[in-house]
């Protein structure tokens, strides 16, 4: 196997950061986050417990807020005339290297790819960012206490969704290129040929995950209302989820001069757990109940999404389990479906 020694790894990353946007896990106020880094010293290479950053890598392709259009209302040509409109797209540009992406997050990108790109028309904003990105994965030596990636098709050392995979070894990081893009990234890296294979990760016992077809009979279960009673209807679980991708669109005013009006059309993350998610103008809300909303969250991940795209929209990262303020536990939902 080929290995990057710690010093070779630093040199390689520093070179990458010099001429490209490098995003990597970084600790800020005790929280591990994917952040832009200027050099390798800023990177948290080995997260403790949990190993993954608090927010998933999705923000690199689907930022919390992004401008879709810039809208100008120009003054009328003649008094009393109509104001002309000028529209311009705000498509993102540039390249980015995402370092230290854990396999669960990388698998989340597979879900986002399906949702944003698979069916026509592709989302051009997501597409641009995705095409301009190279993913460098980092295997987790072992699964954390809330991780269940292995039970939803992934694994702590699964390299299928990255361009290049790194594995922690005794004398550095073993390197496994996956795509051409990943191989090309290694140009100029100082690789040491070492005996042996990249280490396999330690696994925890799998949890039972019900089949997609097991869900519909449970749609009317009282379980949803009971479980959701404690739900705070915040949007935390969706925002820290590597696969949640719902958004909201609105126009907002920007400062402008010369009798012009300037607006931006933005889109922002949203969550189906929030009360206004389905509320329509006039006030009617078909998902006014917390139970209905949480049910949608779980049906989306394990029934609706698989129905449409053929795979689950959960990567078993365990973030929602760790962070829900009232301990709504996705594995408890899954076991309800299995046990009944």
């Amino acid at each position, binding site marked *: 196997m080929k290995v990057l020694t710690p010093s070779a790894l630093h040199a390689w990353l520093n070179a990458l950061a010099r001429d490209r946007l490098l995003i990597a896990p970084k600790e800020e106020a005790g929280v591990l986050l994917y952040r832009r880094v200027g050099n390798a010293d800023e990177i948290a290479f080995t997260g403790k417990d949990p190993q993954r950053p608090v927010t998933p890598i999705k923000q690199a392709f689907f930022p919390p807020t992004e401008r879709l259009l810039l809208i100008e209302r120009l003054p009328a040509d003649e008094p009393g005339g109509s104001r002309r409109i000028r529209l311009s797209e705000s498509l993102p540009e540039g390249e980015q290297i995402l370092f230290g992406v854990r396999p669960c997050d990388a698998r989340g990108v597979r879900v986002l790819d399906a949702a944003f790109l698979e069916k026509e028309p592709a989302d051009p904003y997501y597409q641009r960012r995705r095409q301009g990105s190279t993913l460098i994965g980092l295997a987790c030596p072992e699964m954390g206490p809330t991780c269940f990636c292995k039970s939803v098709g992934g694994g702590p050392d699964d390299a299928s969704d990255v361009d290049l995979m790194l594995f922690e070894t005794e004398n550095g990081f073993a390197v496994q290129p996956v795509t051409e893009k990943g191989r090309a990234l290694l140009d100029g890296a100082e690789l040491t040929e070492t005996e042996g294979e990249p280490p396999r990760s330690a696994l925890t016992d799998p949890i039972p995950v019900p089949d997609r077809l097991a869900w519909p009979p449970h749609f009317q279960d009282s379980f949803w209302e009971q479980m959701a009673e404690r739900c705070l209807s915040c949007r935390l679980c969706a925002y820290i989820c590597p696969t949640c991708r719902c958004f909201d669109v609105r126009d907002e005013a920007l400062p402008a001069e010369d009798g012009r009006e300037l607006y931006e059309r933005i889109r922002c993350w949203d969550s189906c757990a929030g009360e206004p998610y389905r509320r329509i103008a006039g006030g009617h809300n078909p998902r006014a109940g917390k139970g209905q909303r949480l049910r949608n969250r779980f049906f989306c991940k394990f029934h609706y999404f698989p129905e449409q795209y053929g795979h689950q929209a959960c990567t078993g990262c365990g973030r929602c389990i760790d962070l829900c303020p009232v301990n709504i*536990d996705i594995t408890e939902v899954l076991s309800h479906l299995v046990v009944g």
Partner: protein
Amino acid sequence: MSHTASIQAKARELLETGAVACVIGYEIGPRGRARPVFVESPEGASRLVWNQACTHNLAAYLPARLRPGKKGEPARPVGVVVKACDSRAINVLLAENQFAREQVHVIGVVCPGVLEGAGQRSIPDEASPGEGPLQARCLRCAERTPVVSDTLIGEPFAAPPATLEEDPLDRLSGLGAEERLAYWLEQFDRCLRCYACRQACPMCNCPTCLFERDDSTWLGMGIGLSEKRAFHLGRAYHLAGRCVGCNECERACPMNIPISHLNRMLAREIETAFGYRAGLAPVPGPLVTVLDRGEGRP
């Protein structure tokens, strides 16, 4: 009898007699973590527990639960398990007419303090409370006994608040205005606008939040720094004279934003100016609505 047994017995009685429709308390959820539970039958009372991981402020569930029905019919009474801090929230909610006193049966528990990491770590039973330090707010707590209760569980005891070596408020107050702003902007920058803080807060019960991105005509929808700053500072002001210091906002935050510093700073100002602490006693109305000539205590 353990606190757990006492809570279970009381809940069973309240549900058997029909005095309440539901008891909101704590249970041990998956992974041994304490979490809120809503018990609606006498048989369900055996789920209830008490231990030093019972950190959630269950008073936060009361306003929605006790709101009148669609046809104006009053909601049936509810029993609720509270610690001293949570009980102060009930006083504030009563002062703000969120529900009537007779709509709640308050099961107060004398509280030895809640452990750091409670809610997120496994503390399965009362007998083995687990290791580790108390939450800082519990170390500072001067009232271990709920200030309002219909049933009191545990023997009241005096526990003078610990003097902590360093209070971050003092450090922050010592900074210049620009440095302090820079500090806060750095904190707010991490915010996701997920509203976990607001949703966990017993006082954040406005039917439409001024800062709700879906409805607000005051604040943009973006998850950007200016919106986050307006939200956090605005929320802090709206909690002035109302925040009881349960710290659920900060605990719920996935991004370690020290929200409690803002709330405690305002609480400190209000105590200095008016000699008032939110929820300590039943009061006729919220502090900010009391306009007595001397602006003295309400």
